[in-house]
């Protein structure tokens, strides 16, 4: 599959994503500079982490005006899968492609540590191969990852099963201690109403090689590759 990994001024996880997709998972992956107006025929888009535009005004607020984001909007509207990681999640929320917003961690601390994620539904391109019992151990590294949405949006997210991942403890319980940033309902990642756009604060690309201490993050990319492969097979049939 062909992945476009976006690159904004201040992105810093773009190369990590390319490394995992290309060298670990054997996919075709290319960087897309934010001034590009097309996605170069990509099958999926990754909006990587970092500090796009120096986090000025609000995290992700400026990046959404980059020309490449118009292409992402069109791609998403046509059902193309888009995954935002960390700053990428913040950008997708600011761009209105995902509900809610990410605000300052409740502790006011930059949190950099491994967390456990529980996958709540396999009904998305990013989670279809992951069972609820299989906790994912992946790192977070952010200062503004506290997920917020108003009560009506939160109810809708629950009803539509748009919450893909929650922060949990090693026993799989979503308690306060397991929540690194104060996110409402321990939310770590959500998807759009049409399920093809998703974002999460933890970094699966930093947990995809044994040398880095965990390979659990790989499941998210593998799920997406599997989803793309089946879609291609259906389209070809």
């Amino acid at each position, binding site marked *: 599959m062909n992945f476009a990994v976006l690159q904004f001024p201040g992105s810093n996880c773009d190369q990590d994503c390319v490394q995992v997709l290309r060298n670990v998972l054997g996919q075709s992956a290319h960087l897309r500079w934010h001034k590009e107006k097309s996605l170069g025929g990509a099958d999926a888009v990754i909006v990587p982490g970092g500090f796009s535009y120096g986090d000025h005004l609000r995290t992700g*607020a400026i990046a959404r005006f980059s020309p490449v984001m118009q292409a992402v909007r069109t791609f998403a509207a046509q059902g193309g899968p888009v995954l935002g990681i960390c700053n990428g999640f913040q950008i997708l929320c600011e761009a209105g492609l995902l509900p809610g*917003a990410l605000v300052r961690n409740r502790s*006011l601390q930059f949190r950099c540590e491994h967390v456990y994620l529980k996958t709540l539904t396999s009904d998305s391109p990013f989670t279809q191969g992951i069972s609820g019992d299989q906790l994912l151990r992946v790192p977070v590294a952010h200062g503004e990852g506290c997920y917020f949405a108003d009560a009506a949006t939160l109810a809708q997210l629950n009803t539509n099963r748009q919450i893909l991942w929650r922060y949990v403890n090693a026993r799989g319980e979503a308690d306060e201690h397991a929540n690194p940033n104060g996110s409402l309902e321990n939310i770590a990642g959500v998807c759009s109403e049409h399920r093809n756009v998703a974002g999460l604060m933890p970094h699966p690309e930093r947990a995809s090689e044994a040398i880095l201490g965990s390979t659990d993050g790989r499941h998210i990319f593998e799920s997406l590759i599997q989803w793309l492969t089946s879609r291609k097979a259906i389209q070809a049939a």
Partner: protein
Amino acid sequence: MKAKIIVTPKKAVVDPQGKTVQQALEQMGCQGIAAVHVGKYLEVELVGHDLPAARQQLEEACHRFLSNPVIEDYKLEIE
């Protein structure tokens, strides 16, 4: 003309910065503080004198960009 824009966190959003500043104020001896909210202040210097047009344009900018309506409120004044 000059536009003055104040962006503040919505009441429903937890404001840990405000709480921390409040605690520090109390530690330095300030009394009678019910709450502190930390926001942003923007000044936009404008060319021309068409107040209604400037207001319309900036209201949209505040709503779409300068504040995030999910988490923030804004107040716009043009003078």
